């Protein structure tokens, strides 16, 4: 057995300097020596031994240290490789950081309001007092008397300037306002840009995009750590869309209630 190892060693050059002889137990830092075989094709360092394995080799039971076999000149220490995280790791970290930064802070459930019977959304709150909120929704409109149901996609911007604590875990937001753009994907005569067949501006508006403005109020209940959500907000909103405003402005016949739309919703604050 011993002779086998001895015959191997000169061939596999040990890169361990005679001066840098092992001194006691290996530290974590020293343990970061290059791994054996790392420098495979390099003729000068054909074989490297981890510093941590040296004591084991030296204390071969019942024998003299194996290392004594190797001529001292053959052993020298290579400086540990600089192990910076490689590009893949950095790339993955960047990717994870990005998604972590834009993780939605709450989810919302929106009933009616010209953006679908029910819309499911998520979003982000920001600002010094978290007075801004941006939501994204996906909703649906049942078919009712038509042939097909349709889907809606909505981008909503909210501004909630004040928050009045009501004591306990309740608070009241007396004003919520903002606007939202809703895109409908349906079977009918819908477009964002007018089709070419009209040969230039003809109807001069987009049937599939509606811009809405709204006013509302909210009440919030803070929840204990037992719950997944930090707080639960109930809100109602009165909204109207661009085409209704145009209709009302050009006619005395229509009054405010004709062009208003009522919505209710829930906000579940997660983060």
């Amino acid at each position, binding site marked *: 057995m011993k002779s086998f190892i001895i015959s191997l060693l000169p061939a596999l050059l040990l890169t361990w300097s005679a001066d840098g002889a092992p001194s006691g137990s290996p530290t974590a830092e020293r343990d970061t020596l290059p791994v054996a075989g790392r420098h495979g094709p390099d003729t000068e360092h054909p074989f490297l031994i981890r510093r941590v394995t040296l004591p084991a080799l030296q204390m071969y039971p019942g024998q003299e240290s194996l290392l004594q076999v190797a001529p001292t000149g053959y052993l020298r220490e290579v400086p540990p490789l600089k192990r910076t995280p490689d590009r893949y790791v950095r790339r993955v970290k960047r990717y994870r950081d990005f998604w972590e930064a834009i993780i939605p802070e709450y989810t919302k459930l929106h009933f*009616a*309001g*010209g*953006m*679908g*019977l029910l819309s499911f959304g998520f979003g982000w709150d920001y600002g010094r007092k978290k007075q801004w909120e941006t939501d994204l929704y996906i909703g649906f*409109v*049942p*078919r*009712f*008397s*038509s*042939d097909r149901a*349709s889907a*809606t996609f909505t981008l909503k911007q909210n501004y909630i300037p*004040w928050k*009045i*604590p*009501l*004591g*306990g875990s*309740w608070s*009241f937001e007396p004003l919520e306002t903002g606007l939202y753009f*809703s895109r*409908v994907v*349906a*079977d*009918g*005569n*819908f477009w964002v840009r007018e089709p070419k*067949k*009209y*040969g230039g501006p003809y*109807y001069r*508006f987009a*049937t599939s995009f*509606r811009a809405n403005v709204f006013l509302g*109020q909210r*009440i919030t209940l803070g929840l204990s750590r037992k719950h997944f959500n930090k707080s639960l907000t*109930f809100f*109602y909103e*009165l909204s109207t*869309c661009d*085409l*209704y405003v*145009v*209709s009302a402005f*050009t*006619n*005395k*016949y*229509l009054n405010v*209630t*004709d*062009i*208003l*739309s*009522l919505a*209710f919703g829930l906000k579940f604050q997660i983060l």
Partner: protein
Amino acid sequence: MRQLQQALRQDIERQSTETCRKTGFRSECLLRRGLSDEKNVNFVILSDVTMNEMKRLFFLLCCALFGAGCELIEYHPYEVRLEHGNHDLNAAAIARIESACRDRDTVRFVMMGDAQRFYDETRDFVRHINRPDQDSIDFVILGGDLSDFGLTREFEWIHDIMKGLKVPYVALIGNHDLLGNGLQVFRAMYGDINFSFVAGDTKFLCLNTNALEFDYSEPVPDFVFIENEIGDTVVRDYRRTVAVMHAQPYGEQFNNNVAKVFQAYLKKSRNLSFCLHAHAHGLMVNDFFDDGITYYGCSCMKDRSYLLFTLTEDSYRYEVVYY
């Protein structure tokens, strides 16, 4: 212990005062309860009573809105959800017209034009037609473009106005009514987009001619429908025919590739007297095909005018009325 309570109380007081200052909040109800002492009011604002009152007020408001505002609930401006009773309006109107005009030699009707977003004018039109001195009018034909954007509410607004008419009205589909889900709304609300009815001894052939809004999945004009009408697959007693449409031949909406074919088909119908159209937003009288068939185009509601036709036993006359 007492000290701790005192400190807590002071702390709450300070906080609530700050809140009040920030929000400018003053509880009237508390003042009315005799807690007029400013210090007390500030302290009590955070009490359960006020808190519950505000909460209750908010939810009461929501319930009230929901109760009073069911009509305000809208899922989408283009939803095809109609008010109860706003279905198959043309069929009901036609039944009224046919029974009222049966066996009559003279029939008087109004051809009105595009009502799109002209609610005030349309309301005045209804008032004008309802005047007691107008009692000789039998029915009204709305020549299409009820809506401007094809929105469901627009159709309902126009019907809310038009249902005030003493006389029945039938509506044709216009190109603006085909935007969004307009076609679905029109079909649910008024019925087929090609239809006919007989008033007295005249058959009114109402045709969808808004070809630009359709692809070849929907024939515009629908020659099969016209053929069936010429062939009188449903036997009806009449002596002459009047064709009614929204978009006139050689307009940008019309399928002008088949304009002459269309005219040839129409002329096969029993004694075609004349044709009516809207769409042009102006008064028009044309003999498009130089064959003696006149196309009368009425103006839109914005011009506050309509065409009043009187069909007598062997001829007809018309007036342009401004109101």
